[in-house]
């Protein structure tokens, strides 16, 4: 009895065993960044907004681990707090994109009548280079974290919708869907129990890559001034501040860039691993 219970308990962790090294390594990096974002107030050594003109452009030191910026603010603390923006924006974009994109993809893949109009609309959105579209949306709505999320969500939705729709189109042709129909299940039940679970794999991979893209895009938008508005630190606007001090304060550009790269690298590695694990045939979702 106890042996049985034990094996049951282990069974629920069985998914860990086949996780490959890449998922663990990439996931570890991502978790690290998420941890930094969550524990930012604890990890930060300074108030990220604290201006101290006398301390401007100080190189890395024991007090300011990663140096200070042109307003004498502590780069390390700003980066640590900036992680929050990246994580929050990234997560929000991923969740919204996935929820909305999945809904659109499911509906248009499953109910063929809606397919035409919905996909034309997605095609139209996809015809804009996503960064330009995001810039235009942020410009239209004003630069704020919330609007960055909206802009990126709008520009990424079609990608998720397409992936989901493609998968739905193939899943709905599988005989197990027909077997569900033979039992008498209705469309929404079939979508819920048959289509959705089978779309999850590519969706998770896609979500990982979207998260990576969203982090880069947020930084890019902030970099050109169409993203997170100051004084709120974000990796992009720290980099943007640093642009003017490229030659005399390398630490202003190097460190935030490194953080972006590490988190995106983590996501990409994890996404690659997930893709190989879940859906070896899927193409890069970009």
């Amino acid at each position, binding site marked *: 009895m106890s042996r049985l219970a034990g094996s049951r308990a282990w*069974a629920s962790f069985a998914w860990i065993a086949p996780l490959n090294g890449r998922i663990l390594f990439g996931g570890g990096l991502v978790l690290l960044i998420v941890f930094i974002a969550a524990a930012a107030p604890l990890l930060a050594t300074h108030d990220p907004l604290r201006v101290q003109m006398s301390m401007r452009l100080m190189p890395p030191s024991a007090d300011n681990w990663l140096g200070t910026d042109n307003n004498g603010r502590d780069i390390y603390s700003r980066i640590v707090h900036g992680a929050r923006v990246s994580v929050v924006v990234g997560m929000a974009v991923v969740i919204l994109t996935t929820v909305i994109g999945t809904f659109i993809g499911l509906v248009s893949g499953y109910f063929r009548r809606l397919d035409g109009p919905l996909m034309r609309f997605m095609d139209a959105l996809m015809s804009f280079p996503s960064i330009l579209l995001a810039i235009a949306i942020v410009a239209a709505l004003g630069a704020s974290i919330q609007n960055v999320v909206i802009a990126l969500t709008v520009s990424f939705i079609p990608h998720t919708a397409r992936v989901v729709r493609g998968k739905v189109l193939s899943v709905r042709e*599988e*005989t*197990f869907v*027909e*077997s*569900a*129909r*033979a*039992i*008498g*299940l*209705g469309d929404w039940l079939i979508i819920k*129990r*048959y289509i959705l*679970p*089978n779309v*999850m794999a590519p969706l998770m991979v896609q979500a990982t890559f979207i998260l990576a893209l969203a982090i880069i895009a947020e930084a890019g938008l902030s970099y050109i001034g169409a993203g997170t508005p100051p004084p709120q630190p974000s990796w992009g606007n720290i980099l943007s501040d640093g642009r003017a001090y490229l030659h005399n304060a390398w630490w202003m550009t190097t460190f935030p860039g490194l953080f972006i790269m590490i988190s995106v690298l983590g996501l990409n590695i994890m996404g690659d691993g997930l893709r190989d694990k879940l859906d070896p045939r899927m193409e890069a979702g970009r």
Partner: protein
Amino acid sequence: MAEPQELVRVTGLKKHFPLTSGVFRRTVGAVRAVEDVTLSIRKGETLALVGESGCGKSTTGRLLLRLIEASAGELMFDGQDIRTLDRRALRTLRRDMQIIFQDPFSSLNPRMRVCELIAEPLKFHQLARGRAEVEAEVDHLMNIVGLAPSHRDKFPHQFSGGQRQRIGIARALAVRPRFIVCDEPISALDVSIQAQVINLLAQLQQDFGLTYLFISHDLSVVRYVSDRVAVMYLGRIVELADTAALFEEPRHPYTAALLSSIPVPDPSLERKDRVILTGDVPSPSNPPSGCPFHPRCVHAQAICRQEVPALRTVARGSGRPGQVACHLAEDLDLQGIPTTEASA
């Protein structure tokens, strides 16, 4: 002996899938997957539907279950016209008729455990209430199809083809149907496993009084399982007869050719006068005029090119009944497969 009752009767069943093409995706034609099929299935019997790939067997099976809508024709199940049923009635009908699929690899939702797969129809149709009752019923069904109870919590990919097919059968049986369409249930399996599944199906038929429409492209399998056989060619039934009659005395040149093409696992058997058909099966989107088989038929006459032969009752030497759709049925001397005593 009383005339066996009909469970299913279809008349003039048609299914055309539209073909689109061109700039505006206009409908330019149709795949005539099923073209004027009339047949009936008696309670408790196994009717086999054979034919080469693409001839419309699966489509017919699906039409019978109303998994797809027919383009034309009448569909009676147990005396009830099921083409007019609304959603709710159709749902109840699903309890009476089920289907087993060919591909045991794609016919089970890979994200569901065996117990969920089997319990789903039970719960959906409220055939078992409460957790305990459902579990008991699932165990019972697994037992019936010969799956060990220890497999309850496994996923389909952890099973071999034959075991998966058993899961599919259990799922179909769960609603306690009267009629099951078996759509090539064994053709994806290894020989040694095929026999297991065939025997299981036969056992179940006996135990539960099931009626089967057994779809297959393999006439040698059909000989073991069916009471009557319908041979399809390009969406039409070309011959329908009792199994033994059909094998021994084919009346349609296509049936004869089919029989003659099948390799027999017996090297001692000398087969003379093998009919090897020339050419391929024509496309159902562009069927030939007249008798669909005439381009490949060595006996074809002028009339065959012009008129579609009707399925009609034709007498056989042995007096056994059967229907054939061939203009020349009476005039042809076709070779069947005489039943030899088994050497093994």
